[in-house]
């Protein structure tokens, strides 16, 4: 089933099933990574995410650090400083305790690195055969500094699109590990907390319009969501998008598009042209943004499409990934 693929099908579920059902004072109006709510005079960012990766351990990380970094990054994408996490485990009967301990260790270590405190949690056990070993849900709270207003709807024609580094590593690492495939050099997941990078970017004083972490559905899904959210076009120069050679090779061999592959430690930033160089410089100076690049611009044309100028001089439309590899060529 493609509904979890983070592409067109999950978007349809949210739009046509969940949102109508949840309509009311509780439902969020803009679909951002985290909700920003007023609470006791403070602007609080609030988000939740569930982690169901297979295998649990893969080159570069495991489900434990994913569960922290995923939620921390969702908070960071509205400009919040992450503060507290709650975590819930759903364990399959028969899961090795040693394995669980390694996951818990990784989770705790990741929280320390990200500077968030784990303050509450829950554990449930389901019958053998009713889960993939360990599922984790994390919920995060963060504080949004005054004057920070970061959301997809603020992308404006003329803005510059930045990406914080080489894309596609997490998806390829997990896939090759799960499938037992090797692509020359081992590809490692990029899982990392991005709150430090975002803090550095905010410290420049630049008016950052939009931040997104391109997780499921990859860069393609993220750019399409921004284009739709702001009703703008996005023009990307294909060659400017950093892709590590082993990731590109793996995608070519399997017939996958690196633009549609998941990342767990990358962000896309949309900033006014006047601020772009300054923000890019700061990103490159940060360990999680060393390979940051300007990859395109927000346009008035082609709204709400994402268009890549190809190496051949053509202009490829980049779709919201469908969650499966249907060919379009006749």
């Amino acid at each position, binding site marked *: 089933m493609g509904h979890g693929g983070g592409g067109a099908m999950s978007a349809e579920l949210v739009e046509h099933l969940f949102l109508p059902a949840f309509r009311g004072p509780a439902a969020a109006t803009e679909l951002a990574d985290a909700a920003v709510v007023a609470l006791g005079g403070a602007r609080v960012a609030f988000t939740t995410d569930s982690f169901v990766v297979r295998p649990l351990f893969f080159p570069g990380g495991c489900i434990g650090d994913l569960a922290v970094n995923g939620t921390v990054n969702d908070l960071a994408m509205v400009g919040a400083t992450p503060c507290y996490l709650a975590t819930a485990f759903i364990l399959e009967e028969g899961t090795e305790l040693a394995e669980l301990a390694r996951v818990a260790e990784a989770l705790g270590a990741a929280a320390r690195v990200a500077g968030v405190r784990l303050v509450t949690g829950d554990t449930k056990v389901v019958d053998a055969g009713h889960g993939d070993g360990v599922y984790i849900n994390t919920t995060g709270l963060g504080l949004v500094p005054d004057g920070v207003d970061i959301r997809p709807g603020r992308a404006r024609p003329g803005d510059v699109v930045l990406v914080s580094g080489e894309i596609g590593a997490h998806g390829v690492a997990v896939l090759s590990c799960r499938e037992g495939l090797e692509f020359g050099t081992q590809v490692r997941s990029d899982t990392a907390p991005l709150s430090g990078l975002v803090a550095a970017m905010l410290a420049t004083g630049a008016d950052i319009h939009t931040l997104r972490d391109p997780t499921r559905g990859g860069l393609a899904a993220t750019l399409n969501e921004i284009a739709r959210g702001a009703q703008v076009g996005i023009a990307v120069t294909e060659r400017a998008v950093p892709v590590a050679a082993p990731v590109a090779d793996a995608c070519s*061999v399997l*017939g996958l598009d690196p633009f549609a592959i998941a990342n767990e430690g990358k962000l896309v930033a949309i900033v006014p042209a006047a601020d772009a160089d300054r923000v890019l410089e700061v990103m490159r100076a940060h360990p999680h943004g060393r390979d940051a690049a300007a990859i395109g611009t927000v346009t008035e044309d082609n709204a709400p499409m994402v268009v890549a100028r190809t190496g051949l001089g053509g*202009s490829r*439309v980049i779709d919201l990934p469908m969650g*499966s590899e249907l060919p*379009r060529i*006749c």
Partner: protein
Amino acid sequence: AGQSGSDGRRRRRITVRGLVQGVGFRPFVHAAATDLALAGWVCNDSDGVIVEVEGSPGAVAEFGRRLTADAPPLAVIERVTATDLAPRGDAAFTIARSRAGDAPHTMVSPDVATCPDCLRELADPADRRHRHPFITCTNCGPRFTIITGLPYDRPATTMAGFPLCPACAREYRDPRDRRFHAQPIACPDCGPRLEFVPPGTGPAVLGEDALAAAARLLTVGGVVAVKGIGGYHLACLATDQAAVATLRRRKRRGDKPFAVMVADLTAARRLAHLDRAEAAVLAGPARPIVLVARRDDGRPALAAAVAPNSPDLGLLLPYTPVHHLLLAAVAAAGGSPAPLVMTSGNLGGEPIAADDADARRRLAPLADAWLRHDRPIHVPCDDSVVRVVDGDPLPLRRSRGFAPLPVPLPFAVAPTLAVGADLKNTCALGTDRSAWLSGHIGDMDDADTVRAFTAAEHHLERLTGIRPTALATDAHPGYRSRQWARRHAAGRPVRSVQHHHAHVAAVMAEHGLTGDRPVVGFAFDGTGYGTDGAVWGGETLIADYRGFERFAHLAYVPLPGGDAAVRRPYRMALAHLWAAGVGWDGGVGWDGDVGWDADLPPVAACPAGERRALAHQLATGLACVPTASMGRLFDAVSSLLGVRHRADFEAQAAIELEARARRCPGGPDAWRNRYAFGIDRPVPGGPLVADAAPVIRGLVRDLRRGLAVEAMSAGLHAAVVALVVDLARQARSERGLDVVALTGGVFQNVLLATAAARALRAEGYTVLRHRRVPPNDGGIALGQLVVAAAGARE
């Protein structure tokens, strides 16, 4: 019972609908009325032409007869209605001013090649339009591409900016003149100017000097962007290997053949074998590119880079005065007539460049210089492409010269827009019993094409006056055409039509079938989204307009990695080998053979790392979609036989495989029954499934025995023909149906289309093939339109 005046006079008002504007209809009416001594008037309105004639009852009756019997050659009369009026005693017959209305359903003429009368004047030193590059008359010239609105009059064309000089105005007003009310006419005094923009920063030159400069540059191997009717061409000498190779490299064209323009049929016959039907299409007023069999001893010898590996040549004759003058100038500059490569001015997949500023920007990296003019092109329109099969034209691209001629429909439809498929896109607007099809728009992969689609659709709405109340699209969730329809729906219903159902419905509609009885439709193509989410393409549908039943299909094989499997046919070959149990992945094969069968061409063509990953994908289904595609089977066999492992352009592997079979003495008949599909009904009550595995295993066996590739390819064609006949027999015995439709891009394969039709007819089937719209996805919009409209009637 007509009303007659006291003096026995009769007055009749006649309304003519159809293609009657811009084709010399009013002068014809004027001449006929004057000849019969009738009084009254004629005018264009947005519904067609209205005539009132008054005179003796006999003359009025004769006028009615001549109106349809002697109409001008380009006119297409759809409907004539007449009412009697009281005589008013008019003294003369006049041509009245056009009336604009709010519901224009008039047909607009397609663009028409320069007529013999104009060519005579072009060559006549005594004529005031001697060598005038924009000579036209009522019977020829640009129409569709210059019309900005209706009714069709000069102010509603891109000639609005060229006021007529007194001499032209006289001709325009004179009902006896060939140029009476011909909207695009002009002369050297008042018409557009030809201009040559040289390489670098040199000054532009005009008129005769422009022609001479362009010809000189062409003869020394330059690439010139030439502005034509529906857009810019890129031209170079077809005999100059270096020039053609340069153009190919700049256009990033791979091995896709270029079309070649020759001066006349005599020159065409020196390059290719033409039969009568091919010559007639080539020289007809639409002047499409015609795919014909090239001569081995062609003269002058064309550069190999014109059409590498292709037994066919795409030829076309000049269709504008500029073409005629340019070919003559090249012959003069080079000392002998030379054919020119004439390829659309664009990068692969992009829409053709038609706007001057856009062309300047987009073609700058492709062209050395420009030969252009200041008559704007309002809507781009690419060259049409036609091939002749068994004496009948088979359109491969229906565009310039045909668009926007309506296709008559077998039943009345509500105003509907069909947005077509994503490749070779065209759109269609239908209302009542007509469908108007756009020209070829292009591949919707490209953002510029999506924009061109919007422009073409708006233009078509303006010309037809149709305001669609419903939209029809393909069912493929990823199609941009479908996304476009959803974005532009504005509350109107959007109906999804399954791809192959649309293919079959398109053939039915163009043959005027009412749909009371279903047909047996063979829709063989590369890719179409199926109702089960799989990729269909080897389909036998029992279909009418309202629905279809999947009667039979090719057995599913995994399509590994979506578009990658299409671009690299060796992946498809390995998938088919895997499905047929031929071991190339280190396992034990069907023949007990173990290991990596590196002797098989696709195994050798696939890099080892990719082969290991592919074996894993096929075994686990990772990034694989099941496909029943006939197009992919031809790709797979092309790679299996070592013909083509990577495709530079759509269907290249299949086209080159067909070329091999055509070289086989005796053709497919000589290798009948060599290979056979397995036909089975795995699920009781479900569709028949045709398994290619026995064919693949037979080919592997023959490959290892060293049988000639030509023979094996012929054998594959024979097996597909036998499959079609077997399935048709099954449909006849189960359902009593004997009308068979052949459609889908695979039926562009002449060998297959001809052999299948012959075999079916021999068994008493009625065989329907495309004549008006392409069997490829360029014909999808028409099918979507009729299916959506039929569904809405329920």
